[in-house]
C-alpha cells in the first residue's frame, strides 16, 4: 500500500489525496503539535509555506538538479527555507515559536513536503507545481486543523484558546490573558496516544464518508486506498 501511495502521482487534493489522512505522511509534527488549534494552525501554515517555496524552487531548478543526488537537494532546499522561517518566527512570533519548539526545524524533513517534491515538483513546470503544492499544503492544514480542534475540544472544552499567539509577538504580548489555561476536562486528549487514536478515528470517519459517497454515486466496487483482503464472516 505504502509504496503504491508513494509512487502514486495522483493529483493532490485536500480530500481524496490528503497527505496526512490518506498518505500518512508527515505524521510526526501533526501528532505532536495538534494539542491546540492555535499550534496546529501555526505549524500547518508554516509547513504549507515551506512546501510552496521549496516546490517552486525545486521545479525551477529541476534541470540543474543531479538525478542521483536529488533527495539531498530536496533536503537542503527545504532545510534552507526552514532555517529562514525558523528565524523569522523566532523574531516575530516568539511565543508561538516557543510552543512549536523543535517541530519548526523538523519541517525540513517532513515527508508530506519531500514526497511532493519527488513526485511532482521535480518533473513539472513551476506553475503546475505551485498549484500542486498549494493543494497539498491546504490538505496538510485541513488535517492538522481537524485533528487539533478535536483534541483541543475534547481536552479542554474550548477552541482557539490562546489565539493571541497567532499575532505578531509585540502585539501578542499586549493581549496575553492571565487565565489562558482553560479548565481541563481530561488529560488524555493532550497526550500523544490520544493523537494517534483520534487521528485513526478521523481517518475512519473519512473512509466512512467516502464509502457512503461512493455508494451514492456508483455501484462500482473499487476498494478505497487499502487493499482489503479479508471479507470473512467472523
Amino acid at each position: 500500500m505504502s509504496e503504491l501511495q508513494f509512487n502514486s502521482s495522483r493529483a493532490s487534493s485536500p480530500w481524496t489525496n490528503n497527505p496526512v489522512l490518506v498518505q500518512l505522511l508527515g505524521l510526526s509534527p501533526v501528532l505532536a503539535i495538534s494539542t491546540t488549534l492555535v499550534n496546529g494552525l501555526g505549524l500547518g501554515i508554516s509547513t504549507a509555506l515551506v512546501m510552496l517555496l521549496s516546490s517552486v524552487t525545486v521545479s525551477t531548478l529541476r534541470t540543474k538538479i543531479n538525478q542521483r543526488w536529488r533527495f539531498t537537494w530536496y533536503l537542503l532546499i527545504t532545510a534552507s527555507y526552514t532555517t529562514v522561517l525558523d528565524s523569522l518566527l523566532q523574531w516575530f512570533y516568539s511565543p508561538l515559536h516557543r510552543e512549536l519548539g523543535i517541530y519548526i526545524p523538523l519541517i525540513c524533513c517532513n515527508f508530506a513536503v519531500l514526497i511532493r517534491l519527488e513526485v511532482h515538483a521535480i518533473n513539472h513546470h513551476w506553475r503546475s507545481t505551485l498549484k500542486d503544492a498549494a493543494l497539498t499544503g491546504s490538505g496538510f492544514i485541513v488535517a492538522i486543523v481537524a485533528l487539533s480542534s478535536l483534541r483541543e475540544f475534547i481536552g479542554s472544552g474550548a477552541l482557539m484558546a490562546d489565539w493571541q499567539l497567532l499575532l505578531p509577538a509585540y502585539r501578542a504580548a499586549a493581549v496575553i490573558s492571565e487565565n489562558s489555561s482553560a479548565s481541563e476536562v481530561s488529560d488524555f486528549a493532550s497526550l500523544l496516544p490520544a493523537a494517534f487514536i483520534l487521528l485513526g478515528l478521523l481517518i475512519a470517519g473519512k473512509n466512512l464518508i467516502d464509502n457512503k459517497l461512493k455508494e451514492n454515486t456508483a455501484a462500482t466496487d473499487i476498494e478505497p486506498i487499502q487493499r482489503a483482503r479479508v471479507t470473512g464472516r467472523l
Partner: protein
Amino acid sequence: MQTQPSAIVISSPMQHSQRSTGRLMLLVIAACIPGVATATWYFGFGVLINIMLAASMAIVLEACALKLRGRDIRLHLSDNSALVTAVLFGIAMPPGASWWLVAMGIFFAIVIAKHIYGGLGQNLFNPAMCGYVLLLLSFPVEMTSWHIPNDVLVDGSSFSAFSLAGLRQSLMVSMPVFGSAQMSSPDSIDGLAMATPLIEFQMAGTSALLAAWDAGVSLFSRDSGAAWELVNMGYLCGGLFLIYKRIISWHIPCAIIATVTMMSTLFYAPDSSAIYGTPYLHLFGSATMIGAFFIATDPVSAATTVRGKIYYGIIIGLAIYGIRVWGSYLDSIAFAVLLGNFCAPALDYLCRPRIYGHGKKSRSVPTTEVEP
C-alpha cells in the same frame, strides 16, 4: 473473495474434542472466583458492583457492536469473551469507581480495542487493559481512590460493610443516581484503601505498613497487607486451576513470576525502602498474580509460540518490576501487559518453532518448491 472453505465437502477430521471456546471462557471466570471473593471480603461490595456493572455494559456493547457489524449476535455472544473482559476489567477497577468511569473503560475495551480490530481473536491488545490504561491516563485521581466501606464513618456512625447499609453505601458511591453518598472523597480513602500496598510503600515509606505486614495473616483483621496477600493467593489458586485444566499454558505465568522474583531478589535492599522489598512482597503484595495468570495469558493478545511465550513473560515481568519500582505510575500490570502485547506479534514471528523435517540447525527454512 471467499475466505470460507467450500462447505459442500465435509472435511476431516470428523471428530472433535469436547472443548468449546464459550466453556473455556466460563472456566476462566470460574477461576477468578476465589480471588474475587477474597477481594470482596476485604474491600466490600464495590468489587462485585464493578464486575456486575462492567459485565452488563460489556454484553450490551458487544451486542451493539455485533449488530453494527452484521454478525450473528447470539452465536458470537456465546463465546463469553466479553464477559471475561468485563470481569478482568471490573477486578482491575478500584472499588467504588463511578459508573461512568466503568462505562467509559468498557466502551474503549469492547468497541475500540476489540471490535474495531474485527472482534474476538483479532484484537492486538488486551481489551480490558486498554480500557483500564485509558482511564488511568485520563483520570489518574479517580482511578487511585478506593472506596472501602468498613471503617468509614457516615454521619458519625459506622456500620458493617456487609450489612444492607453497607451495600447501599457502595451502590451510592458507584452510581450516584441512587442518591448521593454523604461522604467527601478524602473520607473514602483511608489508610488501607489504596490500590496496592506497594503504592503505599512508595508513598508512605516503610514504617507503619511493614509493622502490619509482620503481624501475620488474619482473615478477620482486614488489614491491607493481609488482604492483598490473600487476594493474591486466591488468584494463584485460580491460576493453578487453569493450568491444571490446560486452559492456559504454564509458560507465561512462570516466566513472569520468575522474572519478578529474580528482579526483586536482585534489587532487594532491606534497609533502603520498602519498594525494594522482598520477592514475597512483590509477588503477593500487589496485583502480580492476577496479572500473571489472568491478564497476561489472554491468548488472543499474548504470544503463541512456546519460546515466544517465555520471552513475552520475561518482558512483562521486567516491565512490571521496572514500572512498579522506578516508574511514576502506580499500577504496573496494565502497562506491562500492553507492552507485552505490543511485542507479541514480533516475538511470534521471530520464535517460530523448527518445523518437522526442517534441519535441526536452521530454524524453519521455508520451502518454496511445491510439488504440483
